[in-house]
């Protein structure tokens, strides 16, 4: 199809010269949108796995409870948790970790403030464990009133619906970009048809069916689509790799998600600042494959659009 010689000098048209660049730009945007959607997709799976695998138990103390008593109460709580079916392990967070979790809200000196901080216990669950949270909550309250189980359900639901929103946005963006691509091809094809009207008329009078003429336009659109598509996809891949790289670098410096300190977070599972929520942007191999198909999908859309435009327009020619 690439070797097909053309009776129409389509490549010399000004509009056609811009087509690969316009298509490249479109594909760049579409590739970023699709890439982001795939990152988000992977993230939501990770987050869900990371957060449904654990619970947090919060045990508040009033000032009148002494240190020894606190220890006993916590032992009771931990014993209760350990005896609960489905629980794989418990970790009592020390002051330093609690300080780290509170830092974003209360500042670096949170533990030195004269406010009562609850004890926090991170509970790791066995895979597919189903706990009766309400029952557990009751048992805990019996040991120490005010003790609370947080299974992150609300937070997960919020986070997931946010991610779903992002995916929807990406899909919408991709749809818009592809529509714009199709319109661009329609415009360029129509321009080509009117520029070459006299030649098309001659070719018609010689007995060429509309499909013969359409073939020349669709071959051009396919070729330019692939060129533009490859350029756009490569640029988008570069952008995503670059962003991933920058994010990792920033993560290492600040000691936040994605860096080594994430390990603590992933066991504590404490919501946004606790981890399992690393924002790494890298794609899986099959996802790169999907991106790699994008130029060809674009070229195909361009080709089909050009053919459709020519056949529709020529129906009105003599």
């Amino acid at each position, binding site marked *: 199809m690439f070797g097909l010689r053309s*009776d129409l000098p389509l490549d010399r048209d000004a509009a056609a010269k811009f087509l690969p660049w316009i298509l490249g730009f479109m594909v760049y945007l579409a590739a970023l949108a699709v890439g982001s959607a795939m990152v988000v997709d992977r993230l939501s799976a990770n987050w869900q796995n990371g957060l449904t695998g654990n619970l947090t138990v919060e045990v508040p103390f009033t000032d009148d409870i002494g240190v020894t008593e606190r220890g006993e109460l916590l032992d009771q709580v931990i014993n209760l948790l350990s005896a609960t079916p489905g629980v794989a392990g418990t970790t009592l967070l020390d002051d330093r970790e609690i300080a780290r979790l509170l830092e974003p809200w209360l500042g670096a000196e949170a533990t030195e403030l004269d406010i009562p901080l609850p004890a926090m216990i991170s509970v790791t669950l066995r895979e597919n464990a189903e706990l009766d949270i309400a029952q557990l909550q009751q048992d805990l309250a019996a040991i120490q009133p005010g003790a609370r189980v947080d299974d992150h359900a609300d937070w997960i639901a919020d986070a997931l619906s946010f991610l779903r929103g992002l995916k929807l946005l990406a899909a919408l963006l991709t749809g818009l970009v592809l529509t714009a691509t199709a319109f661009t091809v329609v415009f360029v094809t129509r321009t080509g048809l009117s520029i070459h009207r006299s*030649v098309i008329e001659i070719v018609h*009078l*010689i*007995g060429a*069916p509309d499909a013969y003429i359409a073939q020349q336009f669709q071959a051009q659109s396919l070729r330019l689509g692939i060129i533009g598509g490859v350029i756009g996809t490569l640029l988008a891949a570069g952008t995503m790799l670059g962003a991933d790289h920058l994010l990792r670098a920033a993560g290492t410096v600040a000691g936040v998600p994605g860096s080594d300190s994430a390990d603590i977070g992933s066991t504590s599972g404490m919501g946004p600042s606790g981890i399992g929520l690393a924002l790494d942007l890298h794609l899986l191999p099959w996802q790169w494959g999907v991106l790699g198909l994008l130029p060809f999908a674009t070229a195909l859309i361009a080709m089909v659009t050009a053919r459709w435009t020519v056949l529709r327009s020529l129906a009105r020619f003599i």
Partner: protein
Amino acid sequence: MVLFDQVSVQYGAGPQILRDITFTLAPGSFHFLVGRSGAGKSSLLKLMYLGLRPTSGLVSLFGRDVATLQPADFPSIRRRVGVVFQDFRLIEHLSALDNVALPLRVAGVREADIRRHCSELLSWVGLAEHLNALPATLSGGQQQRVAIARAVIARPNLLLADEPTGNVDDVIGLRLMYLFEELNKLGTTVVVATHNDALVSRFTHRQLRLEQSSVRIFDPAGVSQSTASPYTMPAGNS
């Protein structure tokens, strides 16, 4: 092959270009189409290559009423008709060879055969040196020969030539006429529109005479030249 019955052509609300034209062209016949310029010769030819639809009347090509043809039927009919346009209508960015090759490419002939046939024919019309020349670099006469080569390359059943010898000297003009006669002997029905009376008088082919928007058929072979008086042939008896 070609049948016109009471055909009239009128562009919009303008004057009638052709009025009540009735004639028949038998397969394998050779006709000159003569008449003053503006008499409607080109319009008459257009009706025969589906470049124009009659305002009224019946035009039938290869046994098919053109009024009943769908656009999808046009290509197959047009491929059986070779046309030499008065203004040549060569495609400017294609070489002489590619212009001539067009009807074969449209018909899906193999590329190797296309090159061979086209260069043979172009050599025959004296353009062996100009196979790859663009039309703009050729003289008017050379362009005309490219246009003729393109019209005949696919061995059409019907050849329509509009002033095909207008831009060439008499020697080449005669050579082109012999080319048309060769094709005619092979079975092609030929119509040559011209106002070159000298050329017409060298041959004894029938003449379709367009006068005052209507047509009369004159057969030089049927009457002596000195007493020639045009008479109208009844339809269906060409």
